[in-house]
Structure formats: C-alpha cells, structure tokens
C-alpha cells in the first residue's frame, strides 16, 4: 500500500466496489422490469399528450351535484368515527393481552395472531370480504376499518406496554394492589400519552381510508368518486377530489389539536396561536 505511507493519499475517501456493482444490477433490473411491464417512451409520450386533454376536462371542478357529494363525505366521516371507536375499544384489551411483560405466553400468542391477521391485508381488500358478508353500504366499511384499527393500534399499544418502566408496576404491586389496580395505576398512566398519539393517528388514517373503501362498495364518498370516474365525468371527479383533500386536511388539523391539548396540555388559545405544531411520533408515518 503506497498511499498509506504518504501523508496525503490521492483519494482520502476510497469507495468500495459493491455500490458500483449494485448500481449496475439496479440498472439491469429497471430495464428488465420496464420491458416486463411494457413501459416504453412511446407510451409515456402518448400519455403526456393525453394529460393536457385530461386536465382540461378535470377543470373547472363541477360542484353542481353538491348534495350527493356532501352525503358521501358525511358517510365517510361516520365510517371513520365509528370504526375508530370500535377499533380502539377492541384494540385495548387485545393489545394488553399481547404484552409479554404482563401476560403469560398462552394469552399473548392468540392475541398476537389476531393482531398479525388484522394487519396482513389492506383495508380495501378487507372491505371486499365484508361487502360479501354484510352487503353494500357503510357497515362493511366500518367493519373493514375496525379490523385495520385493531391491527395498527393493537401492535403499537403492545409495544408501548412492553417498553414501560417496571418500577411503578412493582411499587403498586408491593402495596398488595390487585391486578386491575396495577394496570390502572401502574401501567396505563405510563402509556396514556402514546396511546392518544396512536388513537388520533388512527382516526386520521381511517378518515383517509374511509374515502376509499367505497371503490369496492363499502360506503362513503369513494363509491361516488369511482362511479364518476368510470362515466368520464371528470369535472365532478375533480370536485370530489378537492372535497376529499379538504376533509383530510381538516381531519389532520383536528388530530393535531387533540394531541396538543391532551398530550402537551395546551389550551385552546395556545393551539390557535402556535398554528398546529405538536408532538407527533415519527414512526407512525405508515400509510
């Protein structure tokens, strides 16, 4: 090695070869995958010409049938609220049962299996199954999003409980407190702020998904959106999309307000003055 004997090596940051190999492999994969999926410049070119036409039909948005729009949005909101309520109510005992530091293995395993199963499908796919089971309408959407909420909150709640400090639990137990008091005074106060974080996040996520489950007939604005799209009624599609985005942003704002008030002890005035910043858990950025 000549470079190590000189005080200033020619390249002070030598690069290993594997990034180059990985780059070449990646390029090969991209070409292969594009060929497999029949993606080519011609298609993109044709599409871009279409885009101008498409956007000209999208604008201006047509709010003429606003009654149908409001009805759909309302139903989405109902689905989101009820699914979050049911989901949180069911996820609490299941999440508690799945915590390894509180429960014996014969309790944690079934609870963990329930949580994994609830998480394995996208809510829209779960909605398909519930549409078959309970028919078209909001109930299928509520049940589908309840399942999704159980999976998400159950998992995070279990993790939060498993990370608590044992000291408070031991202190409560040392006074001879029964199991319920141990939970109420030793465990829950430690996980309460994080739980509020999960719950508001899930409400937000349910609101997003409740606007989509209608695509498979499970109620809410999604059905109206998809029907308008299939009829090439693009200016109405645009109106629906704008309303959905407004609803989701409103939901996000409300979730931020709840977190600021319940977790950070803000007053209403604090919240309006700061304009909605709050402690939000980064790893919750799932979809």
């Amino acid at each position, binding site marked *: 090695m000549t470079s190590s004997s000189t005080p200033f090596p020619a390249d002070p940051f030598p690069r290993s070869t594997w990034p180059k190999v990985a780059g070449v492999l990646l390029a090969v994969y991209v070409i292969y995958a594009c060929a497999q999926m029949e993606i080519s410049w011609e298609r993109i070119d*044709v599409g871009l010409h*279409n885009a101008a036409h498409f956007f000209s039909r999208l604008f201006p948005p047509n709010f003429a049938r606003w009654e149908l729009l409001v009805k759909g949005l309302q*139903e989405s909101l109902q689905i989101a609220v009820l699914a979050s309520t049911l989901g949180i109510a069911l996820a609490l005992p299941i999440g508690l049962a799945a915590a390894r530091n509180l429960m014996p293995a014969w309790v944690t395993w079934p609870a963990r299996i329930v949580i994994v199963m609830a998480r394995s499908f996208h809510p829209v796919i779960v909605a398909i199954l519930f549409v078959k*089971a309970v*028919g078209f309408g909001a109930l299928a959407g509520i049940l589908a999003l309840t399942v999704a909420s159980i999976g998400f909150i159950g998992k995070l709640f279990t993790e939060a409980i498993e990370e608590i400090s044992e000291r408070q639990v031991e202190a409560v137990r040392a006074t001879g407190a029964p199991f319920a008091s141990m939970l109420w005074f030793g465990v829950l106060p430690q996980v309460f702020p994080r739980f509020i974080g999960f719950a508001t996040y899930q409400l937000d996520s349910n609101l997003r998904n409740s606007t989509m489950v209608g695509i498979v007939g499970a109620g809410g604005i999604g059905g109206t959106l998809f029907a308008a799209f299939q009829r090439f009624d693009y200016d109405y599609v645009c109106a629906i*999309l704008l309303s959905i985005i407004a609803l989701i*942003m409103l939901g996000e704002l409300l979730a931020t*307000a709840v977190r600021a008030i319940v977790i950070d002890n803000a007053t*209403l005035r604090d919240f309006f003055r700061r304009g909605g910043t709050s402690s939000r858990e980064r790893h919750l950025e799932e979809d």
Partner: protein
Amino acid sequence: MSAAGPSQGTRPPGGEHVIAARAMAAGPVWHRFTRGQRLARFVVYLAIVAAIVLSAQSVEIIPEFLADAPEQMADLFARMWPVDWSHYEGTVHSALMETIHIASLGTLLALIMALPVGVLAAHNLVPFTPVNLLAKLILVSSRSVNSLVWALLFVGIFGPGALAGTLAIAFRSIGFVGKLFGEALEEAQPGPVEALAAAGAPWMSRMTFGYWPQVRPAFWSIALFRWDINVRESAVLGLVGAGGIGMALDAALNLFQWDRVALILIAIVAIVILAEVVVTQVRKRVI
C-alpha cells in the same frame, strides 16, 4: 381518566367545606391543570362523544344484512374452499411479479424525485423559508392524496396498466420519503459540515462528505420502509385498473370465482410476509 389517577391522591381528607376552609387558610388549592387547559380538555372530550353519538344515530345500517352476516360468511368460506391452486401458474404468478415490479420501480422513482425536494425542505441546507414552504407544500399534497386516487388519475392519463400503478406509487411515496429525509437532514450535526466549509470544500463536497454519511442510515431505512408499504399498496391498485395482482383479484371478484379469490389473497399474504422478511434481513445486514 387514567393519567390523572396517581397525582390526585394529594387532596387532603375531609368534605368540600373543609377543603375550602383550608384553602382560605393555606393559600390556593393545587390543581393539576389550569382553567384553560381543563376547558380545552372538556371541549375535546365533548367533541369526541358528540361525534360518536351523531355518527351512530345517523349512519345507515340495514339490520337484515347484519343478521344475515354469519350465513353469508359461512357461504363465503364454503365457496373459497377448495382453493384453486391450478390458477397460479398462468395469470396469478405474472400478476404477482408485476406487483413487485410496480412497488420496486415506484419506490426507486420516488427516491429519485424525493431527494431534491427533501433537500429543499431542510432549513439548514436551504436557508430560504419560502423555498422550504414550497417544498413542504409539494410533500403535503403528495401525502394527502391516497395512492388509489393517484392511480385513478394516472389511469385517466396513461390508460389502464402497470405504468399508471408505478407512477401512482411513486407520487404517493414522494411525500413520505421527502418528509422523513428532510427531517433527517435537519437533525444532522453541523460540526462535520462546518469543518469541511472551513477547509474550503465546495457545496457538493459538503453534501457528499458532510451530510450524506450522517443521513445515509436514515435514508436506506426510509427507502426500505417505504418499499415494504408499497408492496402492500400496489396489491390493491389493480382494483382501479392500475396493474398488478389487484387486477386479477378484480377479475375473479367480478366473476364470483371465490376459489380464485382465495388463491389471490393467499398470494398477497405470502408476498407481504416475504417483503417484510427481506426488509428485516437487509436492515440487519446493511444498516
């Protein structure tokens, strides 16, 4: 409320008048929250209860459908069994591969597009607040549109197929990747960058040798996390015509071929678990 539980034990014994008398004698009574905080909490709780009650009262649920649900569920599973394994060879396998290609190419495209936006959103790299806000606006609008909606738009532009799905995944992921990458950049230590600047290093070198080594683990972790989410998401995009296994699912559903639906659902679960295993292994070895 559970969080308030342990700290309320400080109240002295005796009836209300005793407490009031002591308060007069020994100064004000200690309260956990100020009046403003209590008011804010009360508003939050009231709003939650009102939302649940209003939704439960007005949601349209048909009781006959609910009563019929167990029977329909039994019928569903009876029709799903036996699973039509023979169908896998032809359509399902290629659709599954297409789903993986959509997720991978979409993630790759998102990474390429999100890197500059993430850099523009980081205030310590680009100290111009209007530019930061513009970049954040791009990220927020990417995230607040559901991937199914992105898919609808791209199907409108490019026609049905995997191209629309890939672009939908990419555009949905920009916001996620860009936001997390921008936050990682903002948390980077200024020390190494200042040292490089003091040595006269140009902007590009400060980026590649000052910032990049600090955010590299975060970047790969975000990329893997998003790829995992995208595998799940791309499985449903086909329901609106954007390619992948969702198209096969949609076709089977429309023809009431429940044995094929069962096969496709099993395939989706398998691919989701596989993606999770891959991500866990790569994260363990590389990061």
